[in-house]
């Protein structure tokens, strides 16, 4: 068994690549320290906290590892090397991730000198019952799928009447499986729903420009948390430094919670997140909702294997607040019934479909009811809505439900992303919302209706503001960027299953 104290300390430093900078001579260190080796005692109390989480490094030298130590064997072959930050002020050991190496074609010098970005990943394999070790001494090439992006904190300018989305981010992996007209995102072997949640949250912070210390609460919805007990949200809070950090106590002053309601685990918290920032003492603060899933499916030849044709991998994160809102939440409506259409019993690896309820009455009844009730309540006609987004377990369901509700292709097609990333479960309808926000204009109205098996739907109406245009320039890693990226790598079915299973 691993040691929890060591795990906690290594994760604290390694997940974010924390270090120190001497306030006197400027020397930088990976791993926090209380004094500078050069300046000695006089630097006590003058060391500044730094980290390399949002930085760009350079892979100075590297070598091919083909016979890893025991805990790394599931990675197969990988590149390992020296990564420098800030022109060699700091150097760290690092593993290049997100690459399935063809050993015979590896030319090491081709990788040396290239820019890399730290990635938050699983560190190595452990026993099924152990704490999952993570680290960010894992890097991806900055000129490939995952870009370097500056994290700049921007002071809030305008307070809005209604709470709304102030920033968002979506993360899907570099790997895809393509079968027929459907492409689906596949995690690399060191990724899971925890790492995706952190990546999406990071993207949302970059996009919103808010000070992470102003976060009041983070909600993470998932149905594929690798832990039965232990929140993803606490990891997201610590790695992304959400809320004020109390260094003396070693805590972030933030609330964090995981939610579960099949594929609507995240969307159901949008209203709660928005309501919280409306609370008088929280009005200056923000909340974050993440939907993340390494969507589970049994192998094709097994019970529940029909899901294996549709599952994807990814996460979406939305930040809510009263300031610098890009889409105000106008109103919402949720509906719920006890319909057992899809479930996963405790200690089972894969979910099951009943089969009888899947479309009708499960998906269609709930999505339609929530959408109609919301539109009735707001006295809206389909023509009053610019974009309609619904949960997307496949292509046909969302198209059918949108058409039945009276929406046209141009209203629902922009938000339909399942053919590019697969069903990302808790991240599914939020990913559609993100795709629409990526292109929306001020005063556009968006209706999003999620669906979670078991069963229920949340419908929201949002009105896009002027600030969406300015903020758009801050985010390179858009839905389109991820969907049409030329560095996407396609894998075969066996590789897809292996990567998805993880290490």
């Amino acid at each position: 068994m691993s040691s929890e104290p060591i795990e906690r300390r290594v994760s604290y430093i390694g997940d974010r690549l924390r270090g120190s900078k001497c306030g006197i001579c400027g020397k930088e260190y990976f791993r926090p320290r209380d004094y500078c080796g050069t300046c000695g005692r006089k630097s006590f109390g003058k060391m500044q906290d730094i980290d390399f989480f949002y930085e760009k490094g350079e892979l100075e030298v590297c070598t091919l590892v083909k016979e890893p130590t025991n805990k790394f064997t599931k990675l197969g072959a990988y590149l390992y090397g020296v990564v420098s930050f800030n022109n060699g002020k700091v150097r760290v050991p690092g593993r290049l991730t997100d690459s399935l190496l063809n050993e015979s074609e590896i030319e090491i010098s081709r990788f040396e000198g290239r820019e890399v970005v730290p990635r938050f990943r699983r560190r190595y394999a452990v026993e099924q019952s152990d704490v999952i070790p993570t680290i960010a001494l894992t890097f991806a090439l900055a000129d490939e799928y995952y870009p370097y992006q500056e994290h700049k904190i921007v002071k809030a300018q305008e307070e809005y009447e209604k709470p709304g989305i102030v920033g968002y981010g979506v993360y899907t992996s570099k790997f895809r499986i393509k079968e027929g007209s459907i492409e689906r995102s596949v995690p690399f072997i060191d990724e899971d729903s925890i790492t995706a949640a952190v990546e999406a949250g990071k993207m949302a912070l970059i996009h919103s420009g808010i000070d992470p210390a102003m976060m009041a609460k983070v909600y993470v919805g998932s149905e594929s948390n690798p832990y039965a007990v232990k929140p993803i949200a606490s990891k997201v809070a610590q790695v992304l430094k959400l809320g004020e950090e109390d260094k003396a106590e070693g805590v972030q002053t933030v609330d964090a919670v995981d939610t579960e309601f099949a594929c609507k685990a995240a969307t159901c918290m949008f209203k709660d997140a928005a309501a919280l920032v409306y609370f008088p003492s929280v009005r200056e603060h923000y909340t974050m909702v993440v939907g993340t899933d390494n969507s589970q499916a049994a192998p094709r030849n097994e019970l529940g294997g029909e899901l294996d044709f549709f599952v994807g991998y990814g996460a979406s994160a939305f930040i809510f607040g009263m300031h610098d809102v890009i889409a105000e939440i106008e109103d919402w409506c949720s509906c719920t019934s006890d319909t057992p259409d899809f479930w996963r019993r405790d200690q089972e690896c894969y979910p099951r479909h009943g089969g009888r309820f899947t479309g009708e009455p499960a998906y269609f009844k709930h999505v339609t009811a929530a959408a109609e009730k919301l539109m009735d309540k707001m006295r809206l006609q389909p023509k009053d809505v610019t974009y309609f987004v619904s949960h997307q377990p496949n292509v046909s369901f969302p198209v059918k439900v949108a058409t039945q509700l009276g929406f046209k292709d141009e209203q629902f097609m922009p938000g339909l992303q399942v053919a590019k990333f697969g069903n990302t479960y808790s991240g599914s309808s939020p990913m559609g919302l993100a795709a629409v926000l990526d292109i929306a204009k001020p005063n556009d109205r968006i209706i999003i209706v999620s669906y979670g098996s078991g069963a229920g739907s949340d419908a929201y109406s949002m009105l896009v503001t002027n600030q969406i245009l300015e903020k758009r320039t801050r985010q390179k890693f858009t839905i389109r960027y991820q969907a049409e990226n030329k560095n996407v790598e396609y894998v075969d079915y066996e590789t897809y299953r292996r990567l998805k299973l993880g290490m």
Partner: protein
Amino acid sequence: MTQSCPAIIGVGRTKFGEHYEREPEKLIEEAWLKASESAGIERKNLDAGYFADYFLQLTNKIGIEEGFLSELTELHIPMEKTRSFSSALLNACNGIQSGKYDLVLVGGVEKMTDRWDKIRDDLMLLEDPWSYYAGCTPEANHELMLREYVKHYGISGSQLETFNTALAQIAVRNHKNALQNEYAQYQREISLESVLRERQEAHKPLGLYDFAPVSDGATALILASPEMAKKLSDKPICVAGSASATDYVTYSAREERTGFIASTIAMKNALKIANVEVGDIQVLELYDQSTFLEMVSLEDLGFSKRGMAWKDIMESSKELLGFYRVDGKELFVNTNGGLKADGNPLGATGGAQIYEIVKQLKGEADNRQVKADADLQYGCVLELEGFGTKAYVHILRRVNRS
């Protein structure tokens, strides 16, 4: 100053390799009995013991090694445990030079194959946990340093080919040397082609034949004060200089990444203590965990100029000299086969290096003897802990009896 040097009056060792049938105590017993026999002493004469191992607690679940040694010798003398043999020897020298002891047992043992399935993880975690977390292996940092070296000195094209051949020659020569070493783990020759082929097939700068193996083994020596040595030995080998230095645990974080700064500092200090020049050293045992380390250590210790060691090696290999011609002088290196062929049971390794230099200086190296002992005066041993995190240099001198 050298008159007051502690002296080695007996050495002993086991064969290196896999000893799955024997407990670690049995190995140290064999080494100690041989050392005490060659020194002609009885256990009761001992004042203290220094004992080296890295991993017994992991490999054999033995925590207090000194207790086993106490049982073995049926003595209750002070004993201390260190990691490397060189560290044990350095501490023993300090003990003697302080005037506290007159006769000290120095031993080292390792049983790496008792944990063969986990030993590479252990080795890497010992070297540096943070590098381990980032996916490093016991071999990877050698290759990174090689890359740094090649880039730093701009070695490319046909020069790079020569450089690679020079490194391969090191493995070939070490295996050849081990043919005459009855204790060596590998007593067989390897060809230049096979070294190169292993690298090619692995698509790596260093291959299987570039790295030292995992081994079991034990070594021991008896260290005496000058007065005691005079009484007990006709041919004592004096420890003229003993020094060590340290460096950061994480290789990537070091300023100097094309060599080991700790080796350079330890050598400088050892030479100063021994009051000799680099050029006075005739036989040398280097810590060739990889062929690259043997090469770069020639530079770290000041034998070859920076960036030139591979050329010195290549020139010497061309003529099949059996020694390196450095600065116009003959330098015999790793005459026992080095870590590559003799074996590398960590805690015992330094003992085998000292053993070899002692045998050479005494003229007792049989078929390995490089020169008549009268023509040899100074030998030197470099031992490292981790990937250059610690370096120990010992300079040994043959004492001329008038």
